[in-house]
């Protein structure tokens, strides 16, 4: 019964055995005792801990019961229950993957047996395991870290969007949190006039901001690069070095300096303008305190900080255009403008396209440029309820909702929105990678 046929008829037997209990096929049929023992041990561990696993997952489904009589430490902490549930699911996910690997491994060993007529020798198994050990060892830190520090938090965030985890009535450990289905989405998308209005305002501003920031920085950077490339001044390197400085200074520093310089009442810029006689104490420009003007200021200051990156980028890709192309155009009698329009611009845009897209997604998530320059200010009508201020973009709003207002459920809804908006960009960038094009993936 434990012997195998070479004609492939034992495939079903192997498949069922390996599916029935992890490592069974290895132990009974394929005589790979070490491998089989390891697999079996993993399955035994999972089975032994299964009551615990079931309890944790049950807790994730109920999110705890309110227990009024108990002290804070004895009460059910809904959020810990949710995270523990997700972590256990992640561990189960690894277990299922290992199961799949063991089944596939058993089947491929059997296929080899059919071809060669004998099971792999002990020596061969050892050497095979040592070559396979390297990729496994090299990848495991990545898998573990990504799973527990990226995937679990994101899944948690997405789950919170379907609960009522928020201040003041549903903050553990004093109160429990419950699943509420799509209620938060309903509130945000039309259910509550204040929240819907704030979401519409912030979402529109985020898109305008990301577009304006990317376009201004790109155009500004390209203008500088082309001017310096075309005129070939002897002192261009000095200018280039000067222009790199805003890029080199960390954003926290430069944005906080700008915030102070632009301060309405005691900022240096307004004081200078008063000294020059261009305005009086009463007519100072509210750079960062007028909701409309603040938006312009933010884009403008971001241009200051962002154009060097695109200047360097354009310079780099312009050196990649062959000199012959320029010469040929010159000989054909093309003017400077024509050369720029039909040679420089198209090739630079073609080369920098993925980086423009990356810059757009980066600007949608550009926390630093907003938070350190304006802190989201100025305050507008609905700011006290929603904590969304005049220049807040979605990510800074998430920050405010989480740390100031503790409306975790709404913050999670926004995170889901960011996913929906940005996922197409990721897929676009993926489709144009070399490995995708070459059919490797």
């Amino acid at each position: 019964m434990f012997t195998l046929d070479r004609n492939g008829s034992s495939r079903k037997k192997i498949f069922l055995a390996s599916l029935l209990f992890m490592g069974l096929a290895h132990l009974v049929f394929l005589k790979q005792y070490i491998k089989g023992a390891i697999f079996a041990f993993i399955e035994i561990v999972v089975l032994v801990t299964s009551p615990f696993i079931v309890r944790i997952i049950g807790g994730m489904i109920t999110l705890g019961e309110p227990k009024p009589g108990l002290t804070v430490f004895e009460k059910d902490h809904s959020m810990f229950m949710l995270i523990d549930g997700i972590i256990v699911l992640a561990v189960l996910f690894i277990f299922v993957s290992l199961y799949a690997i063991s089944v596939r491994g058993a089947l491929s060993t059997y296929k080899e047996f059919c071809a060669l007529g004998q099971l792999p020798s002990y020596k061969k198994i050892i050497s095979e395991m040592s070559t396979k050990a390297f990729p496994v060892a090299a990848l495991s830190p990545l898998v573990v870290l990504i799973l527990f520090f990226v995937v679990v938090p994101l899944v948690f965030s997405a789950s919170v969007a379907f609960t009522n985890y928020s201040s003041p009535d549903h903050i553990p450990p004093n109160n429990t949190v419950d699943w509420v289905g799509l209620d938060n989405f309903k509130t945000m998308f039309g259910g509550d006039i204040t929240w819907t209005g704030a979401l519409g305002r912030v979402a529109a501003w985020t898109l305008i901001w990301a577009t304006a920031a990317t376009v201004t920085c790109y155009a500004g950077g390209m203008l500088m690069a082309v001017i310096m490339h075309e005129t070939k001044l002897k002192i261009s390197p000095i200018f280039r070095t000067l222009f790199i400085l805003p890029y080199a200074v960390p954003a926290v520093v430069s944005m906080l300096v700008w915030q102070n310089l632009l301060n309405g009442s005691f900022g240096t810029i307004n004081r200078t303008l008063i000294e020059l006689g261009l305005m009086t104490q009463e007519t100072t420009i509210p750079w960062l305190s007028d909701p409309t003007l603040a938006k312009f200021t933010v884009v403008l200051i971001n241009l200051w900080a962002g154009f060097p990156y695109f200047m360097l980028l354009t310079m780099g890709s312009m050196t990649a255009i062959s000199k012959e192309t320029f010469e040929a155009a010159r000989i054909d009698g093309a003017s400077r403008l024509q050369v720029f329009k039909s040679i420089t611009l198209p090739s630079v845009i073609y080369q920098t396209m993925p980086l423009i897209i990356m810059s757009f997604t980066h600007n949608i998530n550009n926390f630093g440029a907003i938070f350190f320059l304006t802190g989201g200010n100025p305050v507008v009508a609905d700011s006290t309820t929603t904590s969304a201020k005049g220049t807040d973009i979605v990510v800074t709003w998430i920050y405010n909702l989480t740390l100031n207002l503790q409306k975790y459920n709404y913050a999670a809804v926004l995170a889901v929105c960011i996913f929906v908006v940005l996922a197409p960009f990721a897929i676009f960038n993926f489709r144009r990678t070399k490995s995708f094009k070459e059919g490797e993936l």
Partner: protein
Amino acid sequence: MTNSEKTPGVPDKIPETKISDAEKIKLAEERADRVERATKMAEERARAAKRKAASFESAASGDYGYAPEPTKTLTYYNTLQRFRTRVYKTFIVIFLTLISLVVLYPLIYAVSAAFSPGRSISATSIIPFGGGFTTKHFVRLFSETNYLLWFKNTLIISAGTSLSTVLVCSLAAYVFSRFRFVFKKSIMLALLILQIFPSFIGMIAIYVILLRINGLDSLWGMVLIYLAGNIPYNTWLVKSYMDSIPRAYDEAARLDGASSARTFFSIILPQAKPIITFLAIVSFTGPWMEFIFAKLILRSNENQTLAVGLFSFVTDRKNEFTLFCAGALIVAIPFVAFFVITQKVLVSSLAGAGVKE
């Protein structure tokens, strides 16, 4: 005389017919006339072509002193061109100077604020270095604040993040580039999609996970967070680079009996040095200015990082703009020096990032 070199307007042969001598003379004269006209035309054309070529050459080389035939018109033309170019160049220099003033203004002002007496922005002079000179803010930084401690913490976190990111990402990238295995496609796709999320979207969960593994308010906890955040994008970056290293190298090493680990460390890693250096630098500079997690995770004052510490100088309660500038100056100097020194490499590596994939 080939056909193409033929003088235009002159037939090869005059038809031989029986005509009178007078007529013959007349015809000959006419013919000579035509030849003369044609030659003149050809000369004119050649001159025009030459002029045109000269003007291109001078436009390309920027040398307007070259005139093929020093006629009056051409000299005038060249002077005009030279004048126009001068005006154009002067205009560009003025424009670039104005831009650099705008670019430099806040930076110069911040440097001057670091050395000026007074505490808040309102106490500083509006003219850079106009309000006196003092180094007392630097003294205060090291004597009254935890600046040195924050600097040390940040250095430890950055070095840890940089080292671990290079190790984890390059190993994983090597495996993705050279091995075939189950779930390879799924893992790579997952990394690509995860890479678009700013990691602070999951900050509450990260907080709880660190709480569970006793990593709150610790430097290694920060390293773990930054490392995990760095992995998705950078693994792809290094993998794409390693794909371009010829496989013949590692096959040769394998034939000589080298193990996978040996091949990686002694063949692939040296070959991938440019991207590894880039990765090391980028992941080293990141933590210096990261704010959200540093604020959330590092609760005690002794464990704070520079970004949080500096930010605390200019919040509403404490308005120490000059102290902030002094502290920021010390951090910014190495950053600026690094960028200025490596700008050439930066240009090509940024372009490379655009061209690749």
